[in-house]
């Protein structure tokens, strides 16, 4: 590979260092380069792609790319239908994924995803020092010092995009022969076997789906009830692609799905004896199985960052983060890629952002690059201006078509700053929490929101005279928010900041 022979970014001091070469790191380094921010990128991997160089284990993505959608490929509006392509300013480098897919599914195969990411990196000329393993970290004055297999790197700002893809299992499953996501045998070796899968998240159902043609019996168990994404109308819950074992259970086809705690797992001859206890009724059950598979989650390989003071939470040990994905406890240390899901945002109605998936964090990376440029490198990025009579149409068009708002509901918002002396400026895409929690300047933000039962709807946040107000516009069955009713409602909501300047704009 070009990257390996060139070996860019030798050890030394840089203004900023990015660790990783998965989609999160690729999007961030691309966006930083476009802004002219000097930085180094290092990665232990030999090629770009991150976890998609190996997983999903059954070699088919969970995120779709619709080759044919109403908006043309290469447009921003098309990104709503293409969850997997990284974002580029140049038209020739946009919408790469549909061009590398063979048409047999709108879920890319894993090799197609890997090819898409590699193609993006090659076409955009990204430079990464591959084969450079980050080993440890400490602080020295204003710098973070990273010890790597190639030597030491120093930088006052560091971004870790190292994923959450290290399988984790509880101690009760720390038993010889118990397998877990990533170390399964070839599917055909499970032919005729009884399999107990601990965990009912997507990874457990992915494994069950893949083994349905082979296993004699599959048992899936965890304490809480299975939720389906089609019920929650979010990415929370088991995705439709993996629902077949659930239907098999519902129609009494042989799969067993239990809401139960696992009380013990012991070797029993060539197999295992598993005891469970029902979460609701306390009923004890015992299973004699040939294989036990732990699908109990993943952790982030943060190495010694917790020792540096990085606070983490949850089973996945995700860093606690600010709305701009900076460590809450170690300033100057940021995160990109799927780790960005640690920033909570407003989480309205309990619905998390999509920051754990490519279609969400690719936008975060672009926002982070701009944020770093302005706050750490003293850049003042250009803002476009709007006339007062353009505001209503602009905001409603954003709500109807802006991919950042569609993929990052309640997390990212389009912000307009409205100052009588300066006019109306487009502040671009920002974390909604940053907007609602800070600032005194008159401004308006538009986000797209959902409540888990209705269609998505636009949410308008107006800050006037230091007071914030929320205006939820109604959902529309065709997701079109540009009609006269919406113009009238938005015009009324904007009166505190635009007053008479909007007269007639609802017409």
């Amino acid at each position, binding site marked *: 590979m070009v990257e390996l022979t060139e070996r860019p970014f030798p050890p030394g001091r840089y203004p900023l260092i990015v660790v990783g070469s998965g989609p999160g790191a690729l999007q961030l380094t691309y966006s930083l380069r476009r802004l002219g921010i000097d930085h180094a990128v290092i990665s232990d991997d030999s090629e770009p792609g991150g976890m998609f160089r190996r997983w999903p284990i059954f070699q088919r993505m969970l995120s779709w790319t619709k080759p044919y959608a109403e908006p043309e490929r290469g447009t921003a509006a098309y990104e709503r239908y293409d969850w997997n392509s990284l974002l580029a300013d140049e038209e020739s480098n946009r919408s790469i994924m549909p061009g590398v897919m063979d048409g047999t599914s709108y879920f890319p195969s894993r090799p197609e995803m890997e090819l898409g990411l590699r193609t993006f990196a090659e076409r955009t000329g990204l430079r990464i020092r591959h084969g450079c393993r980050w080993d440890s970290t400490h602080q020295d004055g204003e710098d973070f010092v990273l010890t790597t297999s190639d030597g030491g790197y120093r930088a006052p700002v560091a971004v870790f995009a190292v994923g959450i893809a290290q399988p984790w299992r509880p101690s009760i499953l720390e038993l010889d022969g118990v397998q877990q996501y990533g170390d399964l045998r070839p599917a055909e070796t499970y032919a005729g076997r009884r399999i107990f899968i601990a965990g009912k998240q997507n990874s457990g159902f992915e494994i069950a789906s893949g083994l349905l043609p082979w296993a004699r019996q599959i048992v899936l168990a965890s304490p809480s*009830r299975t939720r389906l994404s089609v019920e929650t109308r979010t990415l929370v819950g088991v995705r439709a692609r993996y629902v077949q074992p659930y239907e098999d259970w519902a129609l009494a086809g042989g799969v067993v799905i239990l809401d139960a*705690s696992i009380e013990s797992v012991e070797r029993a001859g060539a197999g295992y004896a598993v005891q469970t*206890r029902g979460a609701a009724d306390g009923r004890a059950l015992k299973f004699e199985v040939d294989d036990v598979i732990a699908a109990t989650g993943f952790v982030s390989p943060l190495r010694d960052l917790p020792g540096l003071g990085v606070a983490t939470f949850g*089973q996945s040990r995700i860093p606690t983060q*600010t709305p701009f994905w900076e460590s*809450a*406890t170690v300033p100057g240390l940021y995160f990109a890629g799927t780790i960005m899901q640690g920033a909570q945002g407003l989480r*309205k*109605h309990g619905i998390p952002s999509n920051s754990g998936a490519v279609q969400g964090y690719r936008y975060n990376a672009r926002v982070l690059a701009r944020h770093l440029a302005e706050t750490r490198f003293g850049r003042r990025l250009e803002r476009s201006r709007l006339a007062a009579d353009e505001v209503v149409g602009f905001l409603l068009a954003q709500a109807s078509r802006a991919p950042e708002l569609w993929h990052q509901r309640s997390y990212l918002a389009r912000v307009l700053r409205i100052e009588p002396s300066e006019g109306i400026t487009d502040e671009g895409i920002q974390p909604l929490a940053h907007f609602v929690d800070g600032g005194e300047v008159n401004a308006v933000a538009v986000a797209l929101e959902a409540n888990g039962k209705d269609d998505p709807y636009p949410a308008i946040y107006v800050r006037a005279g230091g007071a914030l107000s929320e205006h939820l516009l109604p959902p529309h069955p065709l997701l079109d928010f540009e009609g006269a009713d919406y113009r009238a409602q938005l015009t009324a909501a904007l009166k505190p900041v635009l007053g008479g300047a909007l007269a007639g704009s609802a017409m």
Partner: protein
Amino acid sequence: MDVRDDVVNILAGFSLFADLSTPELESLVETFGEESFPDGERVLRQGLTGSNFYVILEGTASIRVDGIDRSALRPGDYFGEISCLLGVAPVSDIVAQDGLRCLVLPGAELEPFLVGHPRVMFRLLQGEARKVRATTRWLS
């Protein structure tokens, strides 16, 4: 100790969940999400809809009304239940302090959770009664 076991042990010590069995607590830990907040960040926002029900695992939180801190919440305390039960926006901010870490249940799921766990509902009702009593005494 596993992270999940850690949370189950913490919950077992909270009066709200004192009547639940270990399998029920394990189910609860899976049903609720876990969140962590930077100090100073708002968890609930006065006047904004769509809030959730939170149980504090670690850290503290301030109850802030119109910018003035009125009270503090500690591990074992919960908040957001009034907004969730009444379907209205919170009348105060809840602001994270001291490394706040919470379990969170989406607002719409609080009712089915409480109906499915009557002893938790009774203990939550006791908590609400204590709040009303304290407020009444303060007013009188």
